[in-house]
């Protein structure tokens, strides 16, 4: 079976003494009607006529690599009252927030959000609508939830405008981008996003997903869903490399980046590779003053789910130590099939105080909750 069965009984992880903060929850509208109140007549008409058009050929939300099950969701996450997984606030409270004693949950709305749409103006209209919908349907109704500022990231200035609109609203705790952008994330076209986020004191989260329009590997299109899932790691690696090498962290020293659902065990290797070859290629990138590994250590946070599983669990401790124990945030990925139960996700051989930080302390410090 490909459904991870959470424990049946409710309860908070005992190690979560600084609170339980889940940085990856995916709320979903039951249909695009949910966005109608927040779209102009022109864009509502456009949405219902042409629809969301990602940078791939399929239409109506059909992904190019079919998921392993409908909406990639846990079989038991479909609300008993009807609707799609994570579309019903009461059922989300029951199944997630109350069940595990989540103190703070961060919403990352995925499609249909218009992010990465081929039409930038439509993407901007959708981002505004999704953010309004988060406020109305979730954040104002449930104090444990926080939102992400959805931005039309292929349009830097429009994204910056959306961020500035939300700046200072405590309902929003981060800016959300997808990890597969049309150009590498360090490209100057995206700098207005990072500048606005830093100005607003919001971290920028890259959530694994999206369609760049380019092949999912640098050697062409893969065949299988398992490859698509595996390739999230490579695209996120390229994003980290680009952010560092383009000098984004040198330019915006207060910028904080969170990698959500990207895995993390690869991060030390990327840092070492950059350090090693920077030595020979420094003359090309004089704008880099600090070693790549230092930049990564001081600007990047990672989330747990899906956590790589070494054949010997103790090897995970090496990785977490190399990344930095203060840089790792718990994520459940509710309501998706590979959901992590906060009581079981972190191997017991991680010392209790480290688990405490991962389950809540680190996110509390990062988001200033």
């Amino acid at each position, binding site marked *: 079976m490909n459904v991870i069965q959470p424990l049946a009984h409710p309860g908070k992880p005992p190690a979560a003494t600084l609170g339980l903060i889940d940085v990856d929850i995916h709320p979903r509208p039951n249909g695009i009607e949910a966005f109608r109140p927040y779209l102009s007549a022109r864009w509502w008409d456009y949405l219902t006529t042409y629809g969301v058009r990602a940078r791939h050929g399929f239409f109506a939300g059909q992904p190019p690599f079919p998921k392993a099950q409908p909406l990639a969701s846990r079989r038991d996450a479909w609300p008993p009252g009807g609707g799609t997984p994570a579309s019903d606030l009461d059922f989300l409270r029951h199944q997630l927030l109350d069940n595990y004693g989540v103190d703070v949950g961060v919403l990352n709305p995925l499609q249909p959000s218009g992010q990465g749409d081929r039409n930038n103006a439509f993407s901007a209209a959708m981002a505004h609508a999704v953010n309004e919908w988060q406020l109305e349907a979730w954040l104002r109704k449930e104090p444990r939830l926080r939102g992400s500022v959805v931005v039309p990231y292929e349009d830097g200035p429009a994204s910056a405008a959306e961020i500035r609109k939300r700046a200072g609203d405590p309902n929003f705790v981060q800016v959300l981008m997808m990890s597969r952008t049309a150009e590498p994330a360090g490209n100057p076209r995206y700098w207005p996003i990072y500048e606005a986020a830093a100005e607003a004191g919001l971290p920028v989260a890259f959530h694994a997903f999206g369609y760049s329009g380019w092949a999912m590997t640098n050697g062409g299109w893969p065949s299988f869903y398992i490859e698509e899932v595996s390739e999230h790691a490579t695209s996120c690696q*390229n994003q980290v490399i680009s952010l560092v090498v383009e000098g984004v962290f040198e330019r915006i020293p207060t910028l904080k980046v969170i990698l959500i659902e990207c895995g993390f065990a690869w991060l030390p290797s990327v840092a070492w590779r950059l350090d090693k070859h920077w030595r020979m290629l420094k003359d090309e990138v004089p704008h880099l003053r600090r070693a790549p590994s230092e930049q990564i250590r001081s600007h990047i946070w990672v989330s747990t789910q899906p956590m790589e599983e070494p054949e010997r669990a103790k090897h995970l401790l090496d990785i977490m130590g190399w990344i930095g124990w203060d840089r790792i945030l718990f994520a459940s990925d509710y309501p998706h099939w590979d959901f992590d139960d906060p009581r079981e996700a972190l191997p017991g051989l991680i010392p209790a105080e480290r688990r405490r930080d991962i389950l809540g302390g680190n996110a509390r410090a990062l988001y200033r909750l």
Partner: protein
Amino acid sequence: MAFWPRRGGRLGGETGMAEGLRAIDCDVHPMVPGMRVLIPYMDQFWADQVVERGITTLDTQSWPVHAPKTIRPDWRGANGRGADRVELLRAQALDRFGADIAILNPLYGVQLVFNEDMANAFTRALNDWVRAEWLDRDERLRASIVIPMHNVEHAVAEIERLAPDRRFVQVLSLVMGETPLGRRHYWPVYEACVRHGLPFGIHAGSAYRHPQTSVGWTSWYFEEYAANQQAFQSTLASLITEGVLTKFPALRVVLLESGVTWLPAFLWRLQKVWKGVRFEIPWVDRPPAELVRDQVRLTVQPLDAPDDADVVQRLLDHLRSEEMLLWASDWPHWQFDGVAAEPGEPNPAVPPGLPEALLPKLMRDNPLATYPRLREGEKA
């Protein structure tokens, strides 16, 4: 401290074995000075095309000639280029790092050519140039058969043409091509490799059918070089999930200039996802990490690890295999500095931090186990 391999004598023979470590350098790069040297190895039609159409060079952006990474400063010739003669390979690498055998992996951009017939003609010329100008001039040298991967019929024909020459010990492709290397249309190439006892070598570099990242073109060469690390992960995922490794258990795949430290994390992730969605690829009936440990080998320049021996040891623990790593100098690419002046001094071509006890395997036993044709010398 990595010791200096003893010099002299041929690899093989009981005496040779007893004399101590013999090193096998699994990745060195002869540099083609320009298309003019390949013309003598083409038929009249293609020789005319090269001249008439002004095709002067197939140097590629994967190794910009003047970038520091491409040629170590003290190995750069007066013309700014790397060595195009066997004498320089001897003086700069073979004699300095104690290799009794070195495997030539030409990186000239024949695989970038879009015209399939042209790519075929240029690839054949490249292989024949390597044979005449390098293999025939130093008995320590072996070479990879470069194949025109975008036409599988041509690729197989080139393997068949050169496989009878036992000095060709491997088939060579670039890591970034037109379609991921596991795809079924490539399988006749893997059949040919198995038929002839040739490992399939995959070297860093791109044929530029796609941007160097799945999120588009990079601005800087530094990013582009770094992105080979992602390419190797994607390629390995393809070889595993499409079923190449399970379909051809005798196939050995060698990742060249791939870096090493990315491999455990990649396998941990792929294996976890495989547990979840293996229904999609039911032919993969063993854990991916086991397949890789059995059939995939990697060269150690670059290792992409810190110099810290403790960290390196922990990374080796994560690999859970002492059989997978092959020594290579990656000459003339700039991965390390220095030469060992005297026997007994540390060999700078061995990445720092690797335990001394591993070196006999790394420098000799693992290459011999990987390349069946290197073992033939022992019987002579």
